């Protein structure tokens, strides 16, 4: 949850634009962290109500450079968590986690891949190949976000 301390920090934003100027994602996506903050300060719009926060790659460049020391990346991540709790995962992520739950990996391996590795003398140790590892990954996914998928 976004804490009282976070809100205090968000309120100190001086709208200098360093965050978005430093944002590697924002250059190519709809993410504009400064505008998210602006709407928060000016209109009280909760950070969670900005769908663009899903474009944050959590590289922490904005946090590194923010002249007001606002822990922006952490706050965006918290906002995402809140968003997921309330509305569930957005479409693509939902698909990705479903795949993870079912197959233990985002890119399931095919038999030919397993054979290729065997031919090359490589061990089969990841959840892509081994049932026990797959079950472990599924359990982890189930445990943390099982109800949301």
């Amino acid at each position, binding site marked *: 949850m976004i804490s009282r301390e976070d809100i205090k920090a968000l309120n100190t934003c001086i*709208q200098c634009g360093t965050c978005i100027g430093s944002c590697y994602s924002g250059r190519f996506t709809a993410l504009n962290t400064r505008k998210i903050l602006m709407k928060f300060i000016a209109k009280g719009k909760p950070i969670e109500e900005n769908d663009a926060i899903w474009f944050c790659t959590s590289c922490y460049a904005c946090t590194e450079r923010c002249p007001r020391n606002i822990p922006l990346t952490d706050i965006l991540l918290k906002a995402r968590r809140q968003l997921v709790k309330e509305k569930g995962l957005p479409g693509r992520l939902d698909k990705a986690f479903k795949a993870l739950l079912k197959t233990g990996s985002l890119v399931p391996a095919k038999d030919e891949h397993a054979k290729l590795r065997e031919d090359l003398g490589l061990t089969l140790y990841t959840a892509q190949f081994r049932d026990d590892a797959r079950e472990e990954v599924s359990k982890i996914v189930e445990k943390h976000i099982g109800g949301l998928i």
Partner: protein
Amino acid sequence: MRIGVFICHCGLNIARSVDVEELTEYAKKLDDVVFATDMKYSCSDSGQEEIVQTIKEHKLDAIVIAACSPKLHEITFRKVAMRAGLNPYMVELANIREQCSWVHQEKPYSATLKAKDLLRMAVAKARKLEALKRRSIEVSKAAVVIGGGVAGIEAALNLADTGIKVYLIEKAPTIGGHMATLNEVFPTNDCSICILAPKMSEVWNHDNIEVITNAEVVEVSGRVGNFRVKVLRHPRYVDESKCKGCIDDCSSVCPVEVPSEFDYTIGIRKAIYLPIPQSTPLYAAIDWEHCIGCQLCEKTCEPEAISFDQKPEEIEVEAGAIIVATGYKAFDARKKEEYGYGEYKNVITTLELERLLSASGPTLGELLRPSDSTIPKRIAFIQCVGSRDEKTNPYCSRVCCMVSLKNAFIIRERYPDAEVTIFYIDIRAFGRMYEEFYKRVQESGVRMIRGRVAEIWEKEDGDLVLTYENTLTGEINDEEFDLVVLSIGIEGTNEIATKLGISVGSDGFFEVAHPKLKPAETDVKGIFLAGAASGPKDIQDSVASAGLAAMKAAQLILSGQTEFDPYNAYVDVEKCTGCAICTKVCKFNAAFMDGKKAKIDANACVMCGVCVAACPADAIDMGFFSEEQIKAMIEALAEERNADPLILAFACWYCSYSAADLAGTTKVQYSPNVRIIRTLCTGRVDPEWILLALEKGVDGVIVAGCRLGECHFKYGNFAAKERIEALKKALEEAGVNPGRVKAIWHSAGEAQGIAKDFDEFVEEIKRLGNIEKELIS
């Protein structure tokens, strides 16, 4: 002791909630009170006259005035006492307005009971009052000014013109400071050195000023009135009596080239050099760190001025006052890695630009970019580099906005083809004629982009790519420039702080005695601040502040002596065991060992009372806030039980007492169970007092000081905090709930805060119940 009591109605301000007649009758019954009366307005002329007559008629030894806060009229009533032939310190006030009638408006019954307590306590203190003498000491008729920038120059001239001898100490070989290296100065854009050089020369030629260059302060001892300043003068290896300042002969043959600090390393100088053409004094200097000793200069110097035999020289001067005008240092832009300063050649700082634009600079005033000496066309200024940035300096450096506007304007003037952009967060053009200047700059076609540049990349040809968001359009851009100027902030130079014993704020600048009303004074008597030493200032403000510092120093020096309220701490030599604890707790060098006994320099004592409370032998006491007087007040309070629970608060004069007064002025209501005793500092609060109060049946004790880190005496409330924490542990072991003692910290403005703390504490103590049962167990 014959005590007279005067109870003021203050119109209805007091009389509306306190029963003044009843209080007067009550006063008459108190021991030693030989006279008591109520008055409509005790501070009015007729009221004052009535008091004077009564003192004479009834031969009073001491008077108690129950009226408003001592902050308001203590001095008034002391003067009244003097007019009646009474010692001014035989007056005690009971604050029944700000801290009673105004804060308990809806509880007249409780307010009257509380007023009785406050009055009884004041009378108890009055019984123990002693006549005190205002003290004074002789002041030496000289001043030391440390730092020869514009502030130091201004202060020195002001002082010297009044006839005071001034020693101006400068670490560089020339006076002039930063200002001497600037190009043109806002908002009038006059040439900086042209307006400064005449003052530099005036200082040098002034009969009352001794300029000591190439020198540093190594030690400061003594006290206000008689400081002794030890100065180390480094040799310049040039005989000042022979050097003609021609410089060309010697420096042209010098094989050593070093980046010139007077060009902020963007130009070069020789090992024998003049810092700037207008150097004052106009003598060459040899830089002993870089000279290789080839002696070529010695051979070419016709007047034979080179003198390698010179040795460092220690000078000691005596002064009544010291003015610290040590100025600022520029922010080191390398700390902002994303801007590449130090790596990218064409990223320069404000000060470097000043030298590039200056006719006496390395390019003789031509704006050439460092990488290829071409004239840049696209120039960017980045504001707030090292300012308004929690990662470097959180404060605003105040001057950089105007500096960049001014330089952008000059570039547009000299190079009409240049495209100049200023990247800013906010433009702060706060001074007179500044906003108007800003408008002129806008009119001149300087592009203003609101946004803080995120990062800079250097291209192979030395051009620079800036990534930024224009926050007004919301566009994120990569844009190329030929030259980037970082508008660097300014930082405090506080290296000398420990030598002087003055304090440094969290921002690195010297702390002033009061941010509004004492901007030139420090906590150490006789040491004053001029210019940027006490915070970022432009030239105008530096000069103004230097004038004030000089005035304050002159006031001290010219009066020939300086006076004090005699509240200072003193040692009872009989009782002193020589443990030297006082010398350790005193942060102001006032307590020292004189043989095996402690001694307190009354002139250096700041009157915080920390040593008084710390002395394990009770050998130290202080005037007007003596051990005996305060204990008498505590005992008097406990004589009657006029509130349940009964709470005592010790409040420091500078913050919490003022906060409680402000609660009164703004009519913030709080529980009438609290009675306040004033001390000058919470550091004076002796844990014994708290124990005494609890023993006598006071249910809870509050110690209210300044906010931590904001103590008027810097460390007093930290001492109090430590003692209270220790006391709480001791109480717990003794079976007394430590919750009965509480420390709170408030600034003078926190009326609501202190009222809330009082109320909460009363509730907490209500829950704990009366102290009696704990004392029995």
